[in-house]
């Protein structure tokens, strides 16, 4: 009797030990909210968040972040190309699980698709080095040639600004819109446009690529937030993203990426 009691207690101990180990492992084992691969829609025309090198390779903060999230969930990251205006439609058409593409969280977008914030940023005006047209703020854009990426909030803002100019009797801007953010900046380098409205993240990278040719005379005080968009029906995915972001911020991944792309560390806190 005593021996069988001893054997039983040993078995119970082993079982309990497994249980503890098992649950401990379970709490460390993150269940991936996506099966097999983590598909993200992206428009790689917005360095340093996402762009292509001359050899066609994808680089950027968002690319690295998507890879980090996939690694965290132990699945493969899969990049899905889209035009900027086609990002959310692609999400709706289930061509991808999320949209990660330096895209702002705005009330009208969130009505259709919820989003998880991950980074703060400012808008900025880019002009030719030396600021020959003397642009020091949005009101100076009156009567100037301005380029912008199509179907963005930047374009919306500039269009509204133009309406303001018209109704207050000031000269409107000559506003041109292009498929890529880089196409818009190209117009300054070509001498066609006087200013481009875009994000401070992008401005830094453009200045690096074209040393001495560009300047950023004005930083908008208001901050925008970049977010990862997902479908309303994917509640588990949303929760998973929130925790993943939190984890990556806590373990210093975000800080490392920010440093890699020369972004202010306060933006990714």
């Amino acid at each position: 009797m005593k021996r069988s009691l001893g054997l039983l207690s040993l078995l119970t101990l082993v079982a309990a030990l497994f249980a503890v180990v098992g649950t401990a492992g379970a709490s460390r084992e993150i269940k991936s909210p996506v099966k097999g691969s983590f598909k993200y829609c992206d428009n790689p025309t917005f360095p340093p968040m996402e762009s292509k090198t001359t050899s066609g390779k994808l680089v950027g903060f968002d690319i690295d972040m998507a890879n980090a999230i996939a690694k965290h969930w132990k699945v493969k990251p899969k990049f899905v190309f889209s035009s900027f205006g086609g990002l959310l439609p692609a999400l709706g058409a289930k061509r991808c699980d999320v949209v990660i593409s330096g895209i702002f969280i705005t009330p009208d977008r969130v009505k259709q698709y919820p989003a998880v914030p991950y980074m703060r940023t400012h808008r900025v005006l880019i002009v030719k080095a030396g600021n020959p047209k003397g642009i020091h703020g949005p009101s100076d854009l009156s009567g100037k040639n301005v380029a912008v990426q199509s179907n963005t909030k930047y374009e919306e803002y500039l269009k509204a600004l133009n309406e303001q100019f018209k109704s207050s009797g000031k000269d409107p801007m000559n506003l041109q819109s292009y498929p890529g953010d880089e196409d818009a900046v190209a117009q300054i380098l070509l001498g066609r446009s006087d200013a481009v409205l875009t994000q401070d993240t992008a401005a830094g990278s453009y200045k690096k690529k074209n040393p001495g040719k560009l300047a950023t005379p004005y930083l908008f005080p208001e901050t925008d937030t970049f977010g990862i968009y997902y479908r309303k029906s994917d509640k588990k995915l949303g929760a998973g993203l929130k925790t993943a972001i939190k984890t990556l911020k806590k373990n210093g991944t975000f800080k490392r990426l920010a440093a890699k792309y020369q972004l202010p560390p306060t933006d990714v806190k």
Partner: protein
Amino acid sequence: MLATFDTHIFWEALSSNPYWKGALLAFELTVASLAAACAIGFFLALGRSSRNGAIRGVVFFYNWIFRATPTLLQLIFIWYALPQLWPTFASNWFTPFLAAFIALSLNEAAYMSEIIRAGLLAVDPGQELAGRALGMSRPRILWRIVIPQAVRIVIPPTGNEFITLLKLTSLASVISLHELLTASQERATASFRYPEAYAAALVYYLGIVSILMVLQAQLERRFTWSSAGRRRRRVAAPAVPAISHDAR
């Protein structure tokens, strides 16, 4: 399925100013480019059968370059490459409409030259012979006898080219021309209602093509030579090989 199509939003888009303006712009660009292309293409067609080898060479080279390269590439080249070669192309006078007009005209001229050449070839050589026998000069023979007959032959393929050009105008959205496609994309992104926004654009394109078809039929009737009072429809004109290039 169709229950989710919001007809109210559809009508709003259809009657909105950007759509109307965009459609008008697409139509104007098409008409202007086709007219210029016909003019340039006519001289290219004549040059193809010139006795001067240098002229023939130039025409061959022109057709080769403009037909072998994608139209989009030509558009982008004109918009991005020219200013780097000659800074004047960055000034305001060189508008997206002008750039698109030049690119599409030059491009389409290469295709029109082949159509016009086929049309001229299809006119019975006896017509020119009879004109010369009367003592008419070559330009006069062309103008009074050969071209009217060639026009009749090239009307159907030219109608095709109009339709192709109309669709090509949507490419100009990448050089910031605010035409019909741009308008529909903007409305779609702003409203998140994609079927309605794009269906409205489709309706405009359909409308323009329908107008073309009516005009083409009228033009074909005008070039049907039968005496007044008896509108007898002629048998189809001699077959001109359709130059298919939808792949571009």
